[in-house]
């Protein structure tokens, strides 16, 4: 071992980069596929059109979220909460089943890091070329390689930042604004903010985010049990490890199947040795499985010295993937998902908000009638316009008056109307609860209501 290797006690040493070896194999292909699908969705979705508008747009200034045929208003916030609960439960389910699948294949941290590593290989070459380049003195070749990498990284990060902002501000206009230098301050700010975060996390920090900053990495062990599929090194089969000559029968020399080529260590993006057992740094990317399988193929041993296996399996017990914990998680998830689909598809297309006028409690008109003023917001979540008639219930003889007999509310829009509710003189005293209703003229059955208080003289 060389003297340049840092000692473990160097607590405050600057971070040293992990040079992960490129691997190919089943899991590498799966990871590439996952990167393509997820990033394809991220970069592609904002460009899709739907009914003449951007298909997926979180319009914060207008307080409306458009997701294809669905328009969400702040009143639908509970759906987002519901979605987050489902996401958390899915994490429990998949972790109990097969460990950190999320980290290895789907986490944005992993996915964007894959792209940055790929761009790095494109400009600086493979693992040993990168190490050599970093050790070499500065030269024109080194400068040009490093500059090319930074150019690609920064460009990709900025494109990512623009796409992110494109989910909130129409992306087609955004591209034009960037070209014309007409970006608003906050648009520009968030493009730079997200680009910096992407560059920092995927280009610079990488596995350190998982090791030091990710909460999931810390509490994942609570979701594991002895029947969770984890990436494991089959110590019983591999040990004692050691290199061997070609054609030598390892059994006769007392060696196990591990040829100690250290490819699994070189392939690891977090720089750990899977042969020491499961460690919290492992993001379950399965690069070591691919690396080891390729060596096993070469030396003619069966694959799977490093593989997805349960702890029970490694101890010679039977595999139990379907177990109460997994079934319970799956059933709760199923119930929540059905409820969510029902809530989204059977959502009331209209909503009504009523606010009392804060300045005057009540007013007596010249003819003695009592008037209360309300600000009413009619929310039309439907994809077409509707006319609404406003009425009052549970308040005898009440007359609802506003600027017009019916209120026209455009598709996916909110209309704020000032409404005056009047009752004959002397009918009520003090406060009285009643119901304001908005009834669509074309669909009278879909009436929406809201409770309010009517005040008269005490």
């Amino acid at each position, binding site marked *: *071992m*060389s*003297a*340049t*290797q*840092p000692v*473990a*006690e*160097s*607590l*405050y*040493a*600057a*971070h*040293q*980069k*992990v*040079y992960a070896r490129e691997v190919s194999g089943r899991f590498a292909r799966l990871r590439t596929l996952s990167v393509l699908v997820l990033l394809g969705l991220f970069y592609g979705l904002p460009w899709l059109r739907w009914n003449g508008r951007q298909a997926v747009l979180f319009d*914060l*200034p207008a*307080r409306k979220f458009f997701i294809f045929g669905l328009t969400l208003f*702040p009143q639908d*916030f509970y759906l*987002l909460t519901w979605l987050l609960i489902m996401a958390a439960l899915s994490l429990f389910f998949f972790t109990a089943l097969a460990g950190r699948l999320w980290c290895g294949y789907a986490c944005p941290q992993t996915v964007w890091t894959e792209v940055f590593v790929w761009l790095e290989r494109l400009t600086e070459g493979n*693992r*040993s070329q990168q*190490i*050599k380049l970093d*050790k070499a003195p500065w030269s024109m070749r080194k400068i040009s390689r490093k500059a090319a990498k930074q150019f690609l990284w920064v460009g990709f990060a900025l494109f990512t930042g623009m796409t992110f902002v494109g989910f909130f501000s129409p992306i087609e206009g955004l591209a034009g604004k960037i070209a014309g230098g007409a970006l*608003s*301050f*906050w648009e520009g*700010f*968030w493009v730079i903010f997200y680009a910096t975060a992407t560059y920092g996390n995927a280009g610079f920090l990488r*596995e*350190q*985010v998982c090791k*030091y*900053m*990710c*909460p999931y990495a810390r509490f994942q062990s609570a979701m594991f049990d002895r029947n969770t599929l984890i990436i494991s090194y089959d110590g019983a089969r591999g040990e004692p490890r050691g290199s061997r000559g070609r054609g030598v029968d390892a059994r006769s020399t007392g060696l196990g199947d591990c040829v100690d080529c250290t490819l699994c260590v*070189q392939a690891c993006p*977090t*720089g*750990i*040795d899977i042969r020491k057992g499961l460690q919290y740094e492992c993001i379950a990317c399965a690069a070591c499985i691919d690396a080891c399988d390729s060596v096993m193929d070469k030396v003619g041993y069966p694959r799977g010295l490093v593989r997805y296996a349960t702890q029970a399996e490694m101890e010679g017990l039977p595999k139990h993937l379907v177990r109460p914990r997994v079934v319970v998680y799956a059933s709760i998830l199923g119930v929540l998902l059905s409820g969510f689909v029902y809530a989204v598809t059977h959502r009331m297309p209209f909503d009504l908000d009523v606010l009392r006028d804060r300045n005057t409690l009540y007013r007596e008109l010249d003819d003695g009638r009592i008037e209360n003023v309300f600000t009413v917001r009619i929310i039309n979540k439907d994809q077409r316009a509707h006319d609404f008639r406003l009425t009052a219930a549970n308040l005898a003889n009440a007359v609802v008056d506003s600027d017009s007999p019916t209120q026209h509310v455009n598709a996916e829009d909110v209309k704020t109307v000032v409404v005056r509710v009047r009752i004959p003189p002397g009918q009520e005293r003090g406060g009285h609860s009643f119901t304001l209703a908005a009834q669509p003229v074309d669909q009278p059955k879909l009436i929406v209501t809201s409770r309010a208080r009517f005040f008269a003289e005490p």
Partner: protein
Amino acid sequence: MADNEAPFPATWSRLSEGVSVALWTSFLAACLETAAVFACFDPMTLGFDDYFSPSLLALRPMIYAMGFFVFWLFTFIGTALTAFMLTSGPHATPRSADRRPTSS
């Protein structure tokens, strides 16, 4: 050491780990806070328009952004203090420096 051998990654200092963890966890909390608060309250009804010129077209995006950073700042104070208290109190343990490298 052969040319193609990489050094082992070293560990972070306690300070950079504490600050990064506090920044990241408070960021997550601030995202949730921003979403929840602005879903319930429209910043335009909170009276901000009294303080800012109404000609400011981008008032909502500005309040969303400022709100996010204010939430992040306050949650960061909480998480950073938590990290500091836990790593400096009687239960603080010396960092385990022995995780690696242990191989030859």
